[in-house]
């Protein structure tokens, strides 16, 4: 059992909150800048050098704007909703390591708010999915049909994607033998990164996490063209800001989870991180934060690459594709684990399953319809 030091924990929480809030602010700038670069534009560049002070101005705007509470809303839930959204997202970070950890040396400082929690990943999943309460309360209490539609979509989406999210990570947990994220990193330090052994699970986890975060291509809850603004249509000022904060904190949490669960956490290959000197600690910190930064960039990158799915496609992906595939994948991993197959067999099985499932799906698809171009007035279309 790790000794509990009140001040260590308090300072860790303060530092983590400080960093996360600033990363959220700068993620919005990164989002705008990267989108601009991908569209051959410049992006915000007026506030400070290269627009680097833009987040501060944005934050000031959020605070100083008039905070409107419409007369037709349910006041209690209306005010509660953004708080729930931000709170649940921040609380989910409690067990996620953000630096070097070592479960075999509990007396050393562990870079986690709550080290050595055995339910680890379960805590993150459960509080992370609580964030949907913020969305539902916000949409329902707004008393506005667009907000309600947005929050209904969100609840359906998040509940559907919880299942593949959990199923895909079960294989990793089976091998690590623990739900504790530090132990999962420890297993990867000894055996190699999980992304090598569970590529299909990694792919499904990333997909499901994108949907959990309501990010494009799964951002149907706030689909602007159809729903005005989605569940936060009626929100203004800092309440809207809190919804944003929750959403981006969710992104940070899941990016950390990608790094911790599948990309070795703080581990680097070639023995770079084998040691306990101060520079090893620094390198481990850079390693895990670098991986997280890459995945945060990946979120933005995918957002400006893939178009949004239709709602039935979204549900189809979850129920017809990810859930069956994740179940079969889990069964395969279980069988391989039971018969103590070598680790490379996991990779081979994963790839084979992916290609096999694709071939199966391709056979099921109806042949494409013949269409014709040109003027078709007055002529029956041949289909």
């Amino acid at each position, binding site marked *: 059992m790790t000794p509990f030091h009140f001040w260590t924990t308090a300072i860790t929480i303060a530092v983590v909150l400080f960093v996360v809030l600033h990363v959220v602010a700068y993620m919005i700038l990164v989002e705008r800048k990267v989108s601009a670069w991908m569209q051959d534009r410049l992006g915000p560049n007026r506030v400070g050098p290269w627009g680097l002070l833009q987040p501060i101005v944005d934050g000031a705007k959020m605070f100083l704007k008039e905070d409107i509470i419409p007369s037709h809303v349910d006041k209690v839930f209306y005010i509660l909703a953004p708080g729930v959204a931000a709170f649940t997202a921040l609380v989910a970070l409690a067990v996620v390591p953000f630096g070097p950890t070592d479960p075999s040396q509990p007396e050393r400082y562990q870079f986690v708010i709550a080290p050595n929690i055995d339910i680890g990943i379960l805590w993150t999943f459960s509080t992370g999915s609580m964030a949907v309460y913020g969305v539902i309360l916000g949409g329902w209490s707004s008393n506005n049909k667009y907000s309600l539609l947005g929050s209904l979509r969100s609840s359906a989406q998040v509940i559907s994607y919880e299942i593949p999210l959990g199923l895909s990570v079960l294989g990793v947990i089976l091998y690590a033998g623990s739900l504790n994220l530090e132990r999962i990193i420890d297993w990867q330090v000894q055996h190699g990164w999980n992304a090598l052994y569970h590529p299909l699970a990694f792919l499904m986890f990333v997909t499901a996490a994108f949907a959990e975060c309501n990010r494009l291509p799964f951002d149907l809850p706030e689909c602007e063209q159809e729903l005005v603004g989605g569940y936060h249509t009626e929100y203004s000022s800092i309440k809207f800001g809190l919804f944003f904060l929750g959403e981006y904190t969710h992104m940070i949490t899941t990016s950390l989870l990608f790094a911790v669960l599948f990309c070795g956490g703080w581990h680097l290959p070639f023995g770079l991180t084998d040691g306990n000197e101060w520079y090893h600690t620094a390198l481990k910190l850079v390693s895990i934060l670098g991986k997280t930064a890459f995945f945060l960039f990946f979120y933005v990158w995918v957002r400006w690459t893939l178009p949004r799915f239709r709602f039935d496609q979204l549900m189809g992906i979850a129920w017809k594709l990810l859930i069956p595939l994740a179940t079969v994948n889990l069964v395969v991993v279980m069988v391989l684990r039971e018969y103590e197959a070598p680790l490379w067999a996991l990779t081979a099985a994963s790839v084979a399953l992916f290609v096999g499932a*694709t071939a199966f799906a391709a056979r099921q698809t109806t042949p494409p319809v013949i269409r014709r171009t040109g*003027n*078709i007035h007055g002529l029956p279309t041949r289909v």
Partner: protein
Amino acid sequence: MPIAEKDVKWVEPPKLGLFDYLYVPAVVTGLMTTARHMFQKPVTQQYPEQEPDLPPNYRGVHRLNRDEQGRVKCVACYMCATACPAHCIDIVAAPSPWPDREKYPETFVIDELRCIYCGMCEEACPVDAIELTSLYDLTGLSREEMIFDKEKLLSVYDQTKNSPKDPVRTSAGRLSVASEPPRETPKAS
């Protein structure tokens, strides 16, 4: 008329192979495309610092040209006001004080807010007196300010006559007589 069978082109969507059904390679291709664009030169023009490079036929604020003696070139024939689809030109003609023409505009007012910048006044003018310039940043604090009178329009001419974007398209202030065939106009340099 029904379309002839030979004009109809039948197309079939390309057959998808196993590789295409994997979806992930297609996503990676898309990601590569967006990543490539990140390193391309932005097309943004930084407006207040960088003036836009307008084409020479850009239709901006009007001007009333002067002849070589500095007088207004307009002969108050009402052709522009007649051609104007927005009815934004208001001319009051008076007998000309100069011997080379019968009339001249006593007042010549264009409502720049009503104008649709179609350039038909420019086409209608028989003496090339009214022209659209490349001035694009037309702003005002009141509606009255945006109603340009003769002096204002002549001052636009003084402001733009040396601009390479707005050449004075005719050199002469002379008029051809309406009963004669149109005179050869010298090319604008």
